[in-house]
C-alpha cells in the first residue's frame, strides 16, 4: 500500500509527529522509532537517503535538527518519496511561514491535517499546495 508511516523525529530521537497507516502497538512504535533514528543518525550526508529496516524501506531527509522519515514498501519510487517529504515541508512552510520544529509542536493537529490531505490509505492523493491548505484555512476562519 505504498506509504506505511510518516515520522518526524528530532536529532535527539524525540518524536514530533507520528502517523502510521497500519496498526502497531505503542511498544512496537516506540521500538521502531528508536531503531530507525539510530540507524539514520549513523549515516552521513553523502550516503543514500534510503535505509532498509526490517521489512520497511525508510526514506529520510533532514531539515535543521528534524528528521522526516517515511516508511514505504518495496514497490515505491524512493526518490519520489524523498521529494514528497520536501513537498510536505514546503507546504508547512507556506502555512506557518518559516516553519520550525516548534511550529509543529504547537500546532501538531494542523501538521496532521495537512498530512491527512496529502496521504490517504497509504497513497499520495493530493500534491497541490493550495488544495492541501484550503480546507485548513477555511476551518481556521470558521472557528
Amino acid at each position: 500500500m505504498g506509504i506505511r508511516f510518516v515520522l518526524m523525529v528530532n536529532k535527539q530521537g524525540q518524536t514530533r509527529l507520528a502517523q502510521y497507516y497500519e496498526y502497531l502497538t505503542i511498544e512496537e512504535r516506540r521500538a521502531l522509532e528508536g531503531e530507525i533514528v539510530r540507524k539514520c543518525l549513523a549515516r552521513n550526508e553523502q550516503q543514500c537517503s534510503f535505509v532498509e529496516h526490517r521489512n520497511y524501506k525508510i526514506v529520510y531527509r533532514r531539515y535543521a535538527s528534524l528528521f522526516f522519515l517515511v516508511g514505504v514498501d518495496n514497490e515505491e519510487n524512493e526518490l519520489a518519496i524523498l521529494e514528497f517529504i520536501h513537498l510536505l515541508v514546503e507546504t508547512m512552510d507556506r502555512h506557518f511561514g518559516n516553519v520550525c520544529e516548534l511550529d509543529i509542536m504547537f500546532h501538531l493537529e494542523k501538521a496532521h491535517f495537512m498530512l491527512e490531505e496529502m496521504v490517504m490509505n497509504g497513497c499520495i492523493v493530493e500534491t497541490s499546495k493550495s488544495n492541501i491548505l484550503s480546507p485548513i484555512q477555511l476551518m481556521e476562519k470558521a472557528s
Partner: protein
Amino acid sequence: MSSQGGFGQSKEFLDLIKSIGEARSKAEEDRIVLREIDTLKARLSSPNITKFKLKEYLMRLIYVEMLGHDASFGYIHAVKMTHDESLLLKRTGYLAVTLFLNEDHDLIILIVNTIQKDLRSDNYLVVCAALNAVCRLINEETIPAVLPQVVELLGHQKEAVRKKAVMALHRFYQRAPGSVSHLISNFRKRLCDNDPGVMAATLCPLFDLITIDVNSFKDLVVSFVNILKQVAERRLPKSYDYHQMPAPFIQIKLLKILSLLGNGDKKSSEQMYTILGDIMRKCDSASNIGNAVLYECICCVCSIHPNPKLLESAADTISKFLKGDSHNLKYLGIDALGLLIRISPEIAEQHQLAVIDCLEDPDDTLKRKTFDLLYKMTKSSNVEVIVDRMIDYMISINDHHYKTEIASRCVELAEQFAPSNQWFIQTMNKVFEHAGDLVNTKVAHNLMRLIAEGFGEDDNTADSQLRSSAVESYLRIIGEPKLPSTFLQVICWVLGEYGTADGKYSASYITGKLCDAAEAHSTDDTVKAYAVTALMKIYSFEIAAGRKVDMLPECQSLVEELLASHSTDLQQRAYELQAIICLDAHAVENIMPMDANCEDIEIDKNLSFLDAYVQESLEKGAQPYIPEDERSGLSNISNFRSQDHESSIHALRFEAYELPKFPVPPKAPSILSSSVELVPVPEPSYVADVHQPATSALTVSNSGSSELKLRLDGVQKKWGRPAFSSTTPSTSSGDTFESNNGTTRHESISSTKSKVHDVSYDSRKLQPEISTEKQKLAASLFGGASKSDRKQSYTGQKVSKTNSHGADKSNLAKAASSSDNAAVIPTSQPPPDLLDLGEPTVTSSAPSVDPFKQLEGLLDPTQDTTKLSSGGVGVPNAPDIMSLYADMSLSGQSTTVANPPPNAIKTHLAKQPSKGPNVQEFLEKDALVRQVGVTPSGQNPNLFKDLLG
C-alpha cells in the same frame, strides 16, 4: 500572521510543550509525560470542562501516546469530541480517534453513527472530515453502514468530497474487496472527472485493481496514455507543478499503471512508446524530481514490450545515474540496471566498474542494492565469485533480518548454479556455520534431501561422490565449537546415513565423532537425538554387514545417560538402540535397511494387522470401539461449535431490529441492542455483500506477498525442475551470451593475472594494483569482454577510469574529513551522538541561534533587561514589546540584511524575499513564542531553527 492565529492555548499546554522541547533525555521526557498523565487524569475527571479546554486535553493525550505511553484513559473523550458541532473540534476529535484506535477497537461502534450523520452534512468540510475518518476507522463489519452514503458522495458537487469518497471506496476495497466489487465502474467514471485531484486520487484504487487483474482494464490504456500526455504537456493547473515539473507525482503513478498494463502486451505497449519517449526526452535530469520521473520511465520501459529506441535511452539514463556523484542516483541506477539486464544482458558489461565501486562502497544501502543486482545476474560462470562475496558480506553484518535473507539467497544460488559438489558442500557449510541459526530449518531439510536423493541425475557415482565429500568435510567441521544446532543436525544425519558408506572411515571413528558432538552439545536435545539415531544407523549397518559391533566406552556411557534422560524422546531412542544391537543381522537388515531413506514407507491406516488381536479381545468380552463422533458426550460440543460458527458469520446489523415478540426475548447481545438505535440504516441490501469477501480478501493478500518474492525470471535452474522460470523472451539470448563468455573468461583472467605479475613487484604501483584487482573481479563477475580486441580497449578504459576514480575517492575522503567540521548543520554541532540526548555545544551555539538577541540589541537596553528577567512571565509585557516590534521591524529588517549573521535563519530570509513570510512576520512569531515563555535558550536552540533554512 493570519495563518498563525495566535496561540490561544493555555499556559499549561505551553509549559508542557516547552518542557518536552527542552527535555534532554528520554528518561526526562518520560518523567514529564508520566506527570502529564496524572494531570490529565485529574483534569478529565472534573465535571465541567469547556469544549476548547477539552480539545487541548486531547492534543495533550496525543502527545502522551506519541511519546510512547498509554493514553487509553482518555479515548472516550476523543470519541465524544467527534459529536461536536464546531468543525475544528470535530476534526480534532476524529484525528485523535484515528490516532488512538485501530479499526477493530470496541469504541469504533460509537462513532459509526456520528460518521453517518456527518456524511449527510451540508458543510462539505464536515463531510470531508467524516470521509477521512471512514478511511481510518471503518472495518469490514461496518462498511455496509456507510457504503451507500459514500457511493452517493461520489457525485458530490465539491471536488474535495468526490476525491475523498473515491479514497473511502479504495479503503473498502483494501479491507474487503467483495464489498465494492459491484462498484468498480465508479472508479472508471471518476477517472474522467473534471477535477485533476479527483482523477489523481482515482489512480490509487485503479492501480490496485490493475495489479490484481490486468486484463479487465486493457481498454483504459488509451485513457491513461492520454492523461499522461496532458499532464506532461502542462495542461493541469499550475498548483500541481513541483520544482518546474508538471504534476510529477501523478506522472509517476500513471507510469506505474502503464507498466502493469503494457507488461507482455505488444499492442498496448505500442500505444505508450511515443509518450514515454517524449517524457524521457523532456525530463529535467538536474532535479531530484526529474530523476524520479526518469527512473519510473525506465521501470516502465523495462516492463512493457521492449522497444529498442526506448531501451537505448533507458540505458543512457542509467549510465548517467551511475556516473553521477549522488548516492541516491547510483542507488536508482543499480536498481534500474537490474531491471534492464533482464531484457538486454549485455548492458551490464559497460557498467562493470561502476557496479564494483558500488559493491565496495561503505554505504550499506548501496551495497545491498548491488547485491540484489548481482543476485539477479548470477549464472554458472560467475556463481562462485558472487556467492563468495555474499557470504563474506553476510559474515560481516549483524542485522538478522538481512543476514537471513542473504543466507537464503546464497543457498538458492548454490543449489541452482553450483559448478561442483565440493563447492556446493563447502558453500553450504559456510552458510550454516555463520548463519545456521537464522536460516529456515527447511533449508537444512532441503540440504539433507539433496544429499540423499542426489541431484536428480541418474548418475549414481556422482551422488556417492557428493556424499563422500560431504562426509569428509563434516568430519572436519564437527569438532568446531559453537556450531549452530541446525547445522549439527544435518551433520549427524549425514554421518549416520553415509559415514561408513564408502568404507573410507571405520565405524568406531565415526561413532566416536558423533559421541563427541553429543557430549559437546549436551544441552541441545535435538542434536543429541540426531546423534543417537546416527549411532543406531551405523551400528545396524555394521551388524547387517556381518561385522561384530564393539561399542566404544564413550558411546556406552552416552547411551546409559540417555536411558535415564528426562526427555522421553531421547529415552526411547536410547532404548531402541540398545534393542537393535542385540538383534541378529537378518532382523537388523529389515529394520534398518541401508540407504533407504528415500523409499516410501507404506502405512496401513486401517491398522488391519491388528484385526486378529481385536477379534480375540472382543471374543474375550471387551467393549467394541466407538468412533469419536458417535460418542454421546462429544456430539453436543461439536454441534454447539458449528452453531456458534454460523452465528458468527452474521455481521453486525445496522438496520433496526424488529420489535421483540413476547415471550421470545431478542437474542442479540447487549452491546448490539444498544447500538441499534445508534445506527439505523434504511437499505439492508448491502449487508449481504459483506458476507462473502473472506476468500477474495485472501487472494489479495496472497498476490501481494507473491509480489515481494525474489525475481527468478531468466534464471536457469541447474538442479530441481529442469525448466526455465522465465516469461521474457530474452532468456535464450542470455544463455548464449553466457556460453560464449564461458570460454573467454579464463583468458581474460589469465591476462589480468599476468598483468599483476608485471607490476606487483613495483612498490609504487599501489593504485594500478587495486585496479587490476577490480578488473579481475569485474572479469569474474561479468565474464570480461567477449572479443579480444575489445578487451584491449577495455583495459585501457578501465585503468583510466579507475585512476580518475581514485582521484575522486581522495577528493571524497577530503570532503568527508572536512565535512566533519564544516558541517551541514548551520551551527557547529559535533557529529551527532547516537541518541545521546545531551546538548554538548549548547553554550556556544545558543547565542548564534538566537535571532532574537540581535534584535534585542536594537531595542532599548532597559527593555532588554526587563525582558530577560521576566522570561516566562512575560505576558503582561507583551503588548509593549509587540508594538515596539511593529515600530522597529523596518529597521530590524534592514540591519539583518546589512550584516547577515552566521546562522541560517537570516540568510534564508535574505535569500527568499519573494516568499510569503517576511522578517517582520518571523520576528512576530518569535516574539509570540517568547511571550508565552519559550525562549531560545541553551536547551532548545534547535526548536527555533528554520526547517527550510
